[in-house]
């Protein structure tokens, strides 16, 4: 099958009651092969999380795949109804807020047991398997933790439990949506270690969604930069951090705390409206490199999956630069 995930020109429309629809995801190209560890980065509101939900078939009921194509594991068209069994064993997700992700009414052991049941573990063995799983994630006193309820655990502990549930069915693709954003720094390191350990031992693919380039640098090999619902640049992490081709990538890297030597640089302006689909470059109003051609040339599809930049005037030559055509 080659590609675990293949999005080409994918767009998501959200229908609203008595209001015009929104287009939070407009044009995303994403190609993830078996074993790839890739990251989606961008400001909040750029459509990262919605893209992740598209990949797990868990879009809100009023959201639909509106344009382009999206294929999961080479066989599932994400524009269609998504079979329940695929989740868990094939693709699993780790969420941003670990405390609200756990069922407040059920014990930890019971909850992990549900995920294990979905992975085909027999009823009698679930409790023991849940404890073993917690132990394998270096959780001290796993039996005690299995007896507890979510409200008795700290955020970091909840996240490890959630990771245990996501990893229980040994998914081929792990989607991690800001997995460490709500954790303190020490816990963050532990959680990232856990994820890395799983990826190393299982050979699973990772899609990491984050606005934190430190975390991305730690786990991912390649990066797709998103802006206003579009993937604007894709390439190896080292290239994008050191020599970005898209002006937005450059500004994003500059604004990140990654470059501790320099003063953090904030990008002026705000994200454009998502009430219409933009055919031209969405970044041009904030871009320091913008020229007059940027506002009247639409950006076409990007051919290459090894690396691309969707910009008329990239900062460096790329194999898959976007060919422009007049609007």
């Amino acid at each position, binding site marked *: 099958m080659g590609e675990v995930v293949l999005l080409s020109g994918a767009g998501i429309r959200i229908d609203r*009651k008595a209001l015009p629809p929104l287009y939070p995801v407009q044009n995303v190209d994403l190609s993830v092969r078996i074993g790839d560890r890739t990251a989606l980065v961008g400001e909040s509101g750029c459509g990262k999380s919605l893209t992740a939900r598209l990949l*797990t078939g*868990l879009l809100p*009921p009023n959201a639909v795949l509106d344009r382009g194509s999206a294929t999961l594991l080479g066989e599932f068209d994400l524009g269609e109804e998504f079979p*329940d*069994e695929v*989740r*868990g*064993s094939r693709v*699993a*997700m780790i*969420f941003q*807020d670990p405390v*609200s*992700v*756990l*069922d*407040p*009414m*059920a*014990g930890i052991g019971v*909850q992990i047991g*549900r*995920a294990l*049941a*979905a*992975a085909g573990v027999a009823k009698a063995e679930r409790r023991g398997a849940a404890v073993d799983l917690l132990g394998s994630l270096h959780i*001290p*006193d796993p039996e*005690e933790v299995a007896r507890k*309820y979510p*409200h*008795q*655990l*700290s*955020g*970091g*502990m909840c996240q490890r439990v*959630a990771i245990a*549930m*996501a990893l*229980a*069915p040994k998914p081929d693709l792990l989607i991690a949506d800001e997995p460490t954003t709500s954790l*303190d*720094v*020490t*816990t963050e390191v532990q959680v990232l270690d856990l994820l890395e350990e799983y990826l190393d031992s299982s050979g699973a693919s990772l899609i990491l969604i984050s606005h934190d380039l430190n975390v991305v640098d730690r786990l991912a090999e390649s990066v797709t930069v998103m802006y206003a619902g579009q993937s604007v640049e894709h390439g190896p992490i080292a290239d994008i951090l050191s020599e970005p081709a898209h002006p937005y990538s450059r500004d994003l890297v500059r604004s990140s705390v990654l470059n501790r030597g320099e003063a953090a640089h904030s990008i002026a302006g705000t994200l454009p409206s998502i009430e219409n689909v933009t055919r031209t470059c969405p970044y041009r109003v904030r871009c320091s490199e913008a020229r007059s051609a940027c506002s009247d040339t639409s950006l076409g599809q990007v051919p290459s999956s090894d690396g691309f930049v969707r910009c008329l005037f990239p900062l460096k030559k790329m194999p898959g630069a976007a060919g422009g055509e007049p609007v």
Partner: protein
Amino acid sequence: MALSTGPELDRDGSTGPPQGADEPASATRVDVFMYVARKLGSLVLVSVLVATLTFVVSRATADPSFLMVGQDATDEIIAARRAEMGLDQPMYRQWASYMADLVRGDLGISRRTFAPVGGEIFERLPATVELAGAALLLSLLVAIPGGIRAGLRPDGWIDRLVGSIAQLGAAIPNFWLGLMLIYFGFYWLGWFPAPTGRGLFALESESVTGIVTIDAILARDWSAARDSVGYLLLPAVTLASGVMPPILNVTRNAAVSVVNSAYYEAALSFGVPRRVVQRRLLLPNISAPVINILAITIGFLMGGAVLVEVVFSWPGLGSYAVAAMDSSDYNPVLGVVLLASVTYVLVYQIADLVTFAMDPRLRISR
């Protein structure tokens, strides 16, 4: 942020938690005991307060002796009567003896029938319980599955359908719906008996529970059961139409918030099948608000559905209180009020206890 790091790590990392981890069960048991004790205490307190209120009302409406002796009585007769009734005693004495009577189940004498009010209420209670139970059952059959289905797909066709039914039920006056059902069900179609109360006389065997339908089923007297259900159905539907909409709305909204919650989505993303998620995760998580509205509904129904009972000549507490009021007979009214209030508080406390027992966040402290 930085300040919270210390204790967070302690809770995470340490193998021997400091706060009595070797005896978590006993600590919890004390909590539960205290909780139940507090509930019982407040039940007693509220009952005393309600009884005091009915006492005040019974003394404030009019001098009961006045009402009993009639207009032509001389001052001597009134004084004798007052002494006989204990009304010449100081207020606190009167209050104490009123309370003592209540504890013995003595709710006074009806001045219309000259029978003890306690006995009359006890006689009519099964009718109210039967009607209330049937109305509650009908409401639940519609509201719980309907509310959950509606909540699973907000704005879907089921949501719109049950939403319209609920709105209609809430908007149509109860007594009017009752009259319409009588008109069509009895007069026009002839499917239902005349609104003359319960199907009491069909039952040949002895009454066990006092609830005719259940008695008939227990005695396997199917024709009597059919008969009593015939009498019961129209008033029950009428009553249910009023109490069902709030239950439906609460269930639906609770289901919507669970379906939109992160833990619902997460459980699906971990591969837990949808039907397991709906049964094991949705149901417990909507239980608290649903139990709460059920308690309110039961409390309301046990007060006697006055209008519905009157329209269908149902011999329950509501029509009893109305008949008593018509002849300025206060003891029955106060008795019904007292019973309704205490039932209300009792049901409410039970609901609280059930919620407490179900929700680990309340039951187990951090």
